[in-house]
């Protein structure tokens, strides 16, 4: 079960997720402090560790649009958030898969702050409202990267002659 800790609208850009002025910081160990830096209340909660791992961040359409900056993924991954959105921008989605950020695409999603979400097979259930929604399954080729434990492990396997 994942509690919704933060909701945002459509077209949330990587500049909102991870403002450009922090881009000199690149290490995944250091980026989480700047997650949603301009949403001070949420950022403060994240930094104070009052958001339990596995909590859900709910987004609208085109979540993560804009820049290719991987910090926008590593900063969320550092807090072990699950990102549930109606759709994701391409580069953000690929970066999330590569780094192992838990993203779930739910086109008809309806969820508000405080709602409890649960994944049941190919459906996402909003336990608070009782509604359930279908999850868009990732193509096999992308799932393979997740199953390998991310792109670094996947590429390493390939280099060593494995059939990645």
């Amino acid at each position: 079960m994942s509690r919704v800790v933060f909701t945002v609208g459509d077209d949330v850009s990587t500049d909102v997720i991870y403002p450009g002025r922090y881009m000199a910081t690149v290490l995944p160990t250091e980026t989480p402090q700047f997650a949603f830096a301009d949403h001070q209340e949420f950022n403060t909660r994240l930094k104070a560790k009052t958001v339990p791992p596995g909590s859900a961040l709910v987004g609208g359409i085109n979540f993560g649009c804009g820049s290719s900056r991987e910090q926008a993924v590593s900063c969320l991954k550092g807090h072990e958030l699950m990102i549930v959105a109606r759709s994701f921008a391409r580069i953000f989605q690929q970066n999330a898969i590569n780094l192992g950020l838990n993203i779930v695409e739910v086109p008809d999603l309806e969820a508000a702050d405080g709602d409890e979400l649960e994944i049941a097979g190919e459906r996402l259930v909003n336990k608070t409202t009782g509604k359930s929604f279908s999850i868009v399954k990732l193509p096999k080729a992308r799932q393979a990267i997740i199953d390998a434990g991310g792109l670094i492990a996947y590429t390493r396997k390939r280099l060593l002659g494995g059939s990645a």
Partner: protein
Amino acid sequence: MSITMGMTVVEKILARATGKESVRVGDVVEPAVDLAMSHENAALVINQFREIYQGTPLEPKPWDPERIAIIFDHRVPAESPKTATNQKKIRDFVGLQGIDKFHDIRGDVGGICHQILPESGYVLPGAVVVGTDSHTTSHGALGAFAFGIGATEMASVWALGTVLNVEVPATIKVIVKGRFKKFVGPKDLILHLIGKLSAKGANFRVLEFHGPTIKAMSTSGRLVICNMSVEAGATAGIVPADEETKRYLRQEAGVKGKITHVLPDKDAAYEQVVEIDVSALEPQIACPHTVDNVKPIKEVAGKKINQVVIGSCTNGRLDDLEVAASILKDKKVADGTRMLIFPASARIYAKALTKGYVGTFMKAGAVVMNPGCGPCLGVHEGALGDGEVALSTTNRNFKGRMGNPNSEVYLCSPAVAAASAITGTITSPRKGA
């Protein structure tokens, strides 16, 4: 499955890059990479690259240093010890690995990656180009399949020389007709198209540009439309190579070798066809805080602006500076408005100096900065104050983009930027418009 169905440009490029006869939308392929570009985020790529080799007996050597390009542009000269140290780390790596396509902070060969690649002749039609920057779509202007990837993906490319698990994208054909009115151009066209398609309209898709307006457009203009294709979500924008492409590569980029045009088949399958007639198009403005919030200039004319920016990988080329200089000649930037100009490369800067544009800008009161990304991504210089408004020829107006979430950014063409700098308000360069 039809056996005779034609291919789009990107399908043809991917077939070539995977050694296949043909590929189809949705196929998962692993294309060989012709050019892999990074900027300062190469610091993260290097970390991830070394991580791949952890615990293996293999030495971390990139597959082909000749096919790697690294250009410093996002924070030049360094704004902080952190950036300076990252840049130093990259320099060391470049030296160690023998990467020749390296453009350091220099007044002769430096500049923004998306200008350096074309002007250096690094990108040829039919190439597969990846870059750790979303505006890598720019290079579709030369008929290449060019797309943005993350740093870890790039580390994988450095290791393997291929991009793993690429799904062949569907293509939207954009046919552009008509002649632009005076002071209306490629930037207005692409803003109009983004407004029409929306910020997600081309997500996971390629925009392939056709039509007489594109045929008549310079490579500089094509770079503008391909650059901003990503703002409609597109994986890539692409203009099939033609005589103009060849002219640019030979005359401006000094390419001596063979140039092969990769063209779409007549019966290529497009997901959608969009037609645009630019004859009646007025200057377009993207309003805060999304790039698809596009309005004709008359709806926002008169809006007070504090800062005008001309530059970036979108609109910092010589023709952009030329039109701005023609408007600013013997005029003054309005009191209460500051104007910052960033040529896209050192080469452009030098030409602008020779042609007298730099002098015109300085006389008008504009500040001409060194080539680089500058204030576009709010990381380095030219930040906005609380409640301030910028009008900029850059490519994004997301909240906080110019370094301050309590500010606004409007996007426009160089002509609109120049005309507006004089009045201090959003102003059409077209009299009476």
